[in-house]
């Protein structure tokens, strides 16, 4: 089959390519194994299975097996992966590829003209190398698929695509030429999708760059025609598509297994029961998934050829599971000796409650337990919505969904109708999830981690059950389920931050280009502009805690070592493969990431006991005045305690000091993993409640891993009154703005989250009016102005006047926060150099440090000169670090 008339004629008409570019023939044979390799366009085709459905309907007699090997961010010769994932050839050989379809060009196109020559060279080399291989079915046929066009969504926050499309056209042409020269088939989908976007009334992309579900539906016939010419199916058979989806699901969980580092990576050797280690047990499961995938191929063929297929699929032909013995108990149980193990004799919540010890003046009550709400199994994270309700993520399947079982981890909503603190009703907002290691509410729905994606789920009909599910962000690594995306937190300026642990090698695409991050860090994402990048590039183990104080200074807790860091010095720009030095995993990877292998970045208080699974700052008038601003830490191994630290300013940064804990429990199964100040000012604690705690210490399929317990606890002061929860959900904008004057951080947080959801053209005028009316004599005036600045940032509206006013504020904390905002607005503030010069010469060291940090986002000798200015003042260790790292970035 040739690339035939329609497309060729179309391309001639547009003058984009010459006729020589598509001479290679695309000829499918019976039994072909088609492997899709490339970036997110490719990877996401297994979640929006239109194209394969069209393909199978067009050629049912050919019995084609399609395997999607795509990874967001993949380029011809740069595809970062976690340890021992395997080279591309290994996977092509595993799938016995006879046809390889390459999807490249989108990420590369951001390099523009200067990247074209390299891209052309790489693609030709890749085609030639692939054609020289035999993956088990002879010389593979190679097809290059062009990138799609960029959609002008009309959203003022997003690029209109003019520059993107000019670049993408050049890269498409380069692919056409390379295909011609190296002898590959070529499918131009750029030209027809550009036309598609122009003609479509509906929005077809998530962000201009990446297709949404309707976009993929429209893309399927375009790709089909570009490959095989006109004459393909005119519609998709839902039964075929459902079968393809089922196949893709099993393949996805095989190829993108969520615990790679514990399967084929180093920790595969862990978890041995004397006979079987993690690799043995989990590679068997992957083999079973391979067989189940193959079973589903056959079902697709029969459905595509119009036959009926039985409702259930017979998977009895698969290998048996390997079931490891327990390593729990016995006289020499090392986890028992080290105090890590709880008790396999689980206590009732009532019995457990008697074993708590509380800080003077406090009491604890049960909010919910698995006894009343069986859905509350393995709770891992909590949030409060704008109605004041508690949301909880659960991971009953932790550490890993088992094939042939129902995948059904959940997001729950608890309602407390009588406001007595005991939950009365549990609603399942979303089931069918896998390892939702963290989540945050916003945009009228919930962002939910489900590695390798971040999902956005939304209830549109008011029944508190999600009915819209979008894979919003993709390309995060899956090396370890418990190092997955977590600790979601809205920054004061409307960025969503979330964290990723060590062993992971992620590549995330955005309309502004690709971001790579290896070996842990914190991501940032602005949902309006879709700007995406790394906030902290630092070798954490698993950073599960992140919290902002009243003035926008943030603190990060690294779980495994139990280290707490002040974030500002760590959050200057440094790009993959480099990292800021000094994290708990730094020594292992320093040879790649740079810096003295022995350097340890200082914690802001000396850690006494590990780990740190979550953190919070006390900001609640329900708590006594002396506890305001304290840094709370959940400790679920060393002490089964909520640790409590006083924090004070010191030089550029902060120092903490441990004081008496809030609460601790003698029940070893008390595993506090997340906590938050509730709308009424009390403290809620998530109790993972499991006798076993380590991911590494037991086999992934250890029989004693618990899949049913979970508790939520609430700490209140015995005599101090609770706070009346602020009204937020659905309130008028003017009232919400008034809430920005409230003392409680979490109230302002939720009010801003609500304001972020409102239309920008309604919020901005109200905000301008509110800001103008603020009382300049109020002692909190500068903080209120800062909240206004942050809300501008949240709505992606630059306000230079307000920015400059705050850069000149009396309070150094306001100046430091404004400097941080400036670091996000450099492109939009033309006089940023002069402003930063002042910051760097500021009388307060924190403002100087923030100034130097901001310079890391600039480049060139001028930037170096700017940063060096900080040496005109005294500098402390944090500032020295920030300067050194900014210099390293500018020299990168």
């Amino acid at each position: 089959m040739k690339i035939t008339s329609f497309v060729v004629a179309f391309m001639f008409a547009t003058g984009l390519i010459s006729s020589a570019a598509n001479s290679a023939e695309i000829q499918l044979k019976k039994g072909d194994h088609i492997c899709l390799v490339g970036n997110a366009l490719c990877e996401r085709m297994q979640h929006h299975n239109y194209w394969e459905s069209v393909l199978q309907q067009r050629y049912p007699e050919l019995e084609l097996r399609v395997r999607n090997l795509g990874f967001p961010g993949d380029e011809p010769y740069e595809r970062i992966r976690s340890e021992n994932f395997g080279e591309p050839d290994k996977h092509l050989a595993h799938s016995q590829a006879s046809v390889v379809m390459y999807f490249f060009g989108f990420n590369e196109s951001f390099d523009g003209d200067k990247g074209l020559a390299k891209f052309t060279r790489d693609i030709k080399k890749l085609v030639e190398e692939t054609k020289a291989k035999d993956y088990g079915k002879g010389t593979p046929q190679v097809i290059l698929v062009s990138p799609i066009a960029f959609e002008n969504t009309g959203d003022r926050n997003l690029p209109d695509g003019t520059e993107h499309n000019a670049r993408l056209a050049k890269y498409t042409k380069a692919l056409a030429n390379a295909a011609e020269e190296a002898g590959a088939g070529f499918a131009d989908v750029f030209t027809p999708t550009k036309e598609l976007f122009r003609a479509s009334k509906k929005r077809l992309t998530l962000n201009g760059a990446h297709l949404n579900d309707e976009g993929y539906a429209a893309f399927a016939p375009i790709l089909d025609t570009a490959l095989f010419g006109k004459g393909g199916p005119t519609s998709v058979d839902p039964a075929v598509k459902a079968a393809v989806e089922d196949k893709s699901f099993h393949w996805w969980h095989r190829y993108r297994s969520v615990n790679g580092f514990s399967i084929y990576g180093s920790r595969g050797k862990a978890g041995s029961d004397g006979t079987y280690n993690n690799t043995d047990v989990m590679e068997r499961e992957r083999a079973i998934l391979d067989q189940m995938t193959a079973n589903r191929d056959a079902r697709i063929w029969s459905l595509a050829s119009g036959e009926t297929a039985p409702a259930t699929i017979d998977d009895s032909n698969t290998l048996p599971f390997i079931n490891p013995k327990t390593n729990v108990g016995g006289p020499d149980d090392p986890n028992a000796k080290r105090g890590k193990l709880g008790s396999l004799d689980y206590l009732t919540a009532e019995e457990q409650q008697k074993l708590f010890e509380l800080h003077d003046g406090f009491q604890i009550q049960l909010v919910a337990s698995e006894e009343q709400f069986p859905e509350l199994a393995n709770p891992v994270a909590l949030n409060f919505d704008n109605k004041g309700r508690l949301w909880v993520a659960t991971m009953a399947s932790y550490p890993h969904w088992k094939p042939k079982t129902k995948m059904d981890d959940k997001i729950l909503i608890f309602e407390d109708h009588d406001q007595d603190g005991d939950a009365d009703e549990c609603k399942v907002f979303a089931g069918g999830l896998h390892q939702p290691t963290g989540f945050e509410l916003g945009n009228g729905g919930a962002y939910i981690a489900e590695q390798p994606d971040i999902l956005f789920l939304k209830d549109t009909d008011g029944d508190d059950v999600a009915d819209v599910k979008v894979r919003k962000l993709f390309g995060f690594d899956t090396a370890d389920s418990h190092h997955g995306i977590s600790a979601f937190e809205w920054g004061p300026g409307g960025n969503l931050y979330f964290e990723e642990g060590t062993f992971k090698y992620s590549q995330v695409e955005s309309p502004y280009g690709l971001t790579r991050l290896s070996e842990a860090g914190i991501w940032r994402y602005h949902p309006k502009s879709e700007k995406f990048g790394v906030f902290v590039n630092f070798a954490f183990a698993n950073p599960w805690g992140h919290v902002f104080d009243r003035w926008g200074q943030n603190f990060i807790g690294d779980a495994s070592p139990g280290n707490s860091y002040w974030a500002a010095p760590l959050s200057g720009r440094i790009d993959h493969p480099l990292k800021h030095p000094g994290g708990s995993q730094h020594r292992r990877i320093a040879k790649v990431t740079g810096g003295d292998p022995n350097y340890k970045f200082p914690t802001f208080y000396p850690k006494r006991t590990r780990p740190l699974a979550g953190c919070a700052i006390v900001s609640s008038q329900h708590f006594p005045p002396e506890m305001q601003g304290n840094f709370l830490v959940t400790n679920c191994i060393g002490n089964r305690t909520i640790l409590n630290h006083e924090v004070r300013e010191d030089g550029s940064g902060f120092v903490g000091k441990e004081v008496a804990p809030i609460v601790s429990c003698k029940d070893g199964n008390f595993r506090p993993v997340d906590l938050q100040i509730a709308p009424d000012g009390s403290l809620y604690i998530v109790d993972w409640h499991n006798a076993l705690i380590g991911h590494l210490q037991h086999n992934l399929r250890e029989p004693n891993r618990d899949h049913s317990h979970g508790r939520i606890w609430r700490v209140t002061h015995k005599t101090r009154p609770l706070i009346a929860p602020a009204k937020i959900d659905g309130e008028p904008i003017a009232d919400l703005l008034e809430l920005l004057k409230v003392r409680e951080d979490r109230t302002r947080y939720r009010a801003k989250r609500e304001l972020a959801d409102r239309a920008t053209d309604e919020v901005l005028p109200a905000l301008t009016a509110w800001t103008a009316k603020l009382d300049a004599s109020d002692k909190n005036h500068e903080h209120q102005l800062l909240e206004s600045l942050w809300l501008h940032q949240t709505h992606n509206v630059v306000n230079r006047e307000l920015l400059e006013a705050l850069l000149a504020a009396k309070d150094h904390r306001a100046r430091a926060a404004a400097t941080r905002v400036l670091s996000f607005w450099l492109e939009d503030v033309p006089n940023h150099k002069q402003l930063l010069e002042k910051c760097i010469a500021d009388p307060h060291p924190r403002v100087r440090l923030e100034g130097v940090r901001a310079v890391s986002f600039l480049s060139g000798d001028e930037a170096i000169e700017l940063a060096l200015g900080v040496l005109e003042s005294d500098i402390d260790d944090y500032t020295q670090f920030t300067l050194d790292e900014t210099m390293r970035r500018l020299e990168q």
Partner: protein
Amino acid sequence: MRHITAFFFFMTTLVGPVWSQQHGHEDHAVDSTVTKVEAPKVFLDKSPRIVAYQLKRLDNQRLLMVQRKTDDAKYIPVYDSILSRIGMSPQFRQEALKALVTLQKSNPVTVLMNAIGKLDAEDREENRTAKQLAVMLLGLNQAPLKEHSNILWEAIKVDDDLSPSIAAAALLMSNQSETDLGKLTGGQSGQLAFLKAITLIPDAKQRSPFRQRVLGLLDRSGNQQIKNAAITAIGSLTNNQAESFVLLGPLITDDSLRASTVRSMLKIPIKERDSETSMQVTRFLVDLAEKTPAAERTSPTFVDAMQLADQLMAIIPSDQARIFRQRLSAVTVRVVRIKTVEEEMRYDIPYFVVEAGKSVQIVLENHDLMPHNLVITVPEALKEVAQLGLQVGPNNGWNGMPYVPESDKVLHATQMVPSDQQITLTFDAPTEPGEYPYVCTFPQHWYRMYGVMVVVNDLDAWLKNPVEPANPIGSNRSFVQAWKVDELKDDLDSGMRDRSPEIGKRLFAEASCAGCHKVQGEGGVIGPELTDVFTRWKGDRVGVLREVLDPSHKVDAKYVMQRILTADGRTVTGVLLAEDDDKVTLLSNPEAKEPTVIAQDDIEAMVPSSVSMMPKALMDQYTKDELFEVMAYLESVAPASKP
């Protein structure tokens, strides 16, 4: 026994361990064609803190690319950095010294003492750098040292480990009066500086005049630190060593003085060791060995002591020695310590004797800047083993040991020992008496780096009638003199007259020069071609002589030895042939058959060395005449050279 005088010559050093050294002799400015590096922008007009910070961030290569002139004080920090930078070539230090004298309207004594004062004695590399600056200071003429002696007197009072002793050494070299010397050694800190200064004086002859003062301090001082310093100073005095030996003997019983006493006694040639003292010391050390707990018998101090006891047993009556040896063998293995000599590519001892079939432990201490190993071969197999070692290369050696062939000619071998580390090799001596060579099998080292393990049936019988073993590579050369430019330069013009290029050419090969350097199309490629060396030097004979005798003085960038640390922990060194985005191509050694290619991805760090790969002292087994012959040969081949 042939004895080679140990002396220290402080040299340019490197950061961290170094695999090999390289030299180049071309009279070029730094050539940056090999590694493309952009000249950094340094804001010299900004405040000193900013300038210092920026300069500190630059590696040596980039530092030398910063603009510098002697017409503006803003360049002072640049020269300051160059002068006291770790791993900087002496030529640039000299340039910086001169420039600083001009810019600061100062004098070399002040400039050097200032630079030394800023270095940290505790840091190994900075300490080495300070010693290099000390060499520059002590190399100044007497006149400036005398003229600026007030600076030196001030430095004596400084409270650190470097300045007082270096300043004191400079004072000692500047011919101070006895009264002034008395003033110097009037207080404890001055005494300590004086004693440490003795060991810093480069030429042993210049140390000799201070002998009585050193002995006086040892005798009079009640301070342990001073006593130990005096003992160490005595070890460095080469006059009246027999007296030194007798004097040191009794001090060995003092726990707090023993370590330094043993080290100094080891430095005294065997012929200067009195047998009565030897007897007492041996008796004490054998008793000590029996009392020392097993766990402490591997400490460097203990190994030193046993080395001394072992040597002394060759001096005392053999029946006594036999008893001591039996007692010792009951508690400890016979230890033979072999040290490498910094920058001279040789072991410190030419042979040692062991008894057939007995256990022996060799401790190889590498004091050189490059790695060395020690391979013991069967008799007369040195050269063959060295060549087989070359064939197996760095990665395919016996038991993974680089350059060690799997061969029945090899009896025992060590790994490559990195700089400043040691390795222990324990084995039973062969049962068959004979002369078993030991050699470093790193390519090309075998020319110079070897010795002989003499295996005898009866050690005491041998000691009564020692027979020096034959040279294992058939060379009949022995140490002549550690030649220095200053001692030769005045005779150079007359000495080079009427020489025969054919003789020079033969010596050029014999001294292994041709292994690395091409002359008229013949020779190795790891060093620069020397056909036109005189032309490049514009006929400057002293300049060429300095290249021969002091190879690190100036190293051409093209021949800088690159040291690559790979991601999997290997170290590879060589001269850079090519570098691109994917790979680095190196020539690792003069005899490598093909270049080593390393993927950029596998490279953790690539560090250029400023020290020449060429060993010093290559000519120290050659006479002055022979040296002139080589010089004349090089001059004769140069196109359009000076007549």
